[in-house]
């Protein structure tokens, strides 16, 4: 039982990182009804921008964080223009494929600039541990959890309390009607993408700072973990992203403990497959998905 509880705590720790990644994913899906599979690689590119600053100028943490966020936003904007803005609005699937092939570009581009396998990243709170009686949690994970909670509040506020949020919801609901109503849909989409990328950059910075290293494979990891977490929670749902992230973290931690490292990822994908086939809307998105499906089946 003690093992299980400690596993859950460990799971919540990794789950916080997953939740942060899933939030950016879900924001993009919520606005565009499309999936950006290059989200992880764009974050990875941002983290490498931070690493470059760290290696070249021994820059401070704040500068590195800013560079990471800017890098992620710039690459995110490139993806948005090429894979989303330029592709016809009814071709959601083409955008998804396009973002997947751009992934290859980003990964190879980064590998050309940074040919080694791993690079150092400055740590924050890397070794600090918070203890609760017999249980413990890394301080950096607690920080991520707090930031994920803040990000949820911030996003909900942004989406439901601001003029920009209203435009975002209008574009999400019906882009054509939004355009007729005078919303600059291209700009709104780009800004929403930038928000998601900035959030992703922040997540990438925190995760890399926790690990104190970064590899080009981070892109793959970030996309898949964020994607699974978002799908578990329900595509497009903001609270769902956090729930899905934490659930994925807890399931993985227990699978690792009881079944071993090879089985951990297998269990995560089995969970994803089961959710997609039995409840494609996830924990929080089923009603919204059913409503969309009903609307699509009108003849």
């Amino acid at each position, binding site marked *: 039982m003690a093992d299980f509880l400690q596993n859950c705590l460990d799971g919540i720790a990794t789950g916080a990182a997953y939740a942060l990644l899933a939030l950016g994913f879900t924001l993009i899906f919520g606005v565009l009804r*499309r*999936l950006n599979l290059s989200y992880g690689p764009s974050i990875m590119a941002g983290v490498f921008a931070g690493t470059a600053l760290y290696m070249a100028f021994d820059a401070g943490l704040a500068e590195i964080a800013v560079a990471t966020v800017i890098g992620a936003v710039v690459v995110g904007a490139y993806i948005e223009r090429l*894979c989303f803005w330029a592709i*016809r609005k009814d071709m959601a699937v083409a955008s998804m494929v396009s973002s997947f*092939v751009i992934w290859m570009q980003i990964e190879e581009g980064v590998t050309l600039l940074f040919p080694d396998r791993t690079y150092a990243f400055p740590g924050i709170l890397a070794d600090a541990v918070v203890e609760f009686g017999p249980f413990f949690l890394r301080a950096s994970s607690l920080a991520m959890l707090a930031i994920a909670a803040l990000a949820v509040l911030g996003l909900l506020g942004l989406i439901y309390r601001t003029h920009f949020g209203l435009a975002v919801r209008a574009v999400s609901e019906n882009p054509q009607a939004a355009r007729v109503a005078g919303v600059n849909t291209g700009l709104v989409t780009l800004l929403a993408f930038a928000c998601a990328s900035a959030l992703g950059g922040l997540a990438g910075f925190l995760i890399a700072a926790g690990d104190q290293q970064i590899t080009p494979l981070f892109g793959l990891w970030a996309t898949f973990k964020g994607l699974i977490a978002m799908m578990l929670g329900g595509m497009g749902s903001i609270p769902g992203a956090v729930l899905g992230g934490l659930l994925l973290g807890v399931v993985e931690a227990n699978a690792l403990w009881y079944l071993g490292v090879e089985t951990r990822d*297998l269990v995560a*994908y*089995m969970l*994803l*497959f089961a959710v997609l086939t039995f409840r494609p809307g996830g924990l929080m998105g089923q009603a919204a998905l059913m409503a969309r499906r009903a609307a699509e089946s009108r003849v």
Partner: protein
Amino acid sequence: MLDDHLIGVLSNMGMISFIALSAYLVLVVGEISFGQQAFFAISAYASGIASAMWGWPFLGAVLWGAAIAGLAGLLLAIPTLRIRGLYFAIATLAFAEMVRLALEIFTYRVEVDGELVGPDGSEGFRDIRYIYEADISAGAFLLVILALLAVTLGAILWIERTRLGAVMRMVGEDPVLARLQGVNVNLTKIATVAAAGLIAGIGGALYAHLNTYVEPKIFNVMLGVHGLAYGLIGGLGTAFGPLLGVALDIGVLESTRAFSGYRMIVFGGLVAVLLIVRPRGLLDEAAVYRIRRFLLRKDAGD
């Protein structure tokens, strides 16, 4: 005679063409699969087990591997029937990763001629030695690949000319309208995904026997995405489309070495731009239609 490099390139093109054709069939019925590499992998293992461990003849092992892969396609198709679009695509991705990760722990070894042979988890599956034992040269194996590819391509081209081909395109373009023309959409999708699994399986069996060694990490998502991209750039109007895609990527980008180090950047950019200007590829339905009409007119003129 062909040199070794050319034989290698052509063999690679032939084997990857099976994945490309497999992904293409799923595209024709209107779905995107990121997971056709799973069937390639399943058949690589199944056929390797049959020939290296059970002592089956080569052709029997290939057919066995393809049949198992087709069965796996059926297993994927049935639970995913209710989901479409993004959801279906992600489900295929999850399925393929499940298969790859399961192969990472799959161990089944028997003693053959005093040696332990068989899949050994992440260590992979060594000693699929048919090609050595039967003393088959790389050139001869290339002919085997091309012959099987020709048979597969011929079968698909034939189907495309029949009513079944029309039914598949109807399901792909507008499933609701297809149902209202009396088409059983579910059955068409299940059969297509199973057939796609079988076709990828032929390629996987050939791959295992040519390389004599397979390991799970070869069958990663990028293999599937390439297979998918070939159909999308080459065109969805005819089965020649995915082959054109393979020729463009492996034939031009990889083997000319002009883009060495930048291949993914060039290929990724090419696919992204083509998805913008020609979302259904170079040989899309309209292009195929125009080519066909041009050929028919020439016939009539003679």
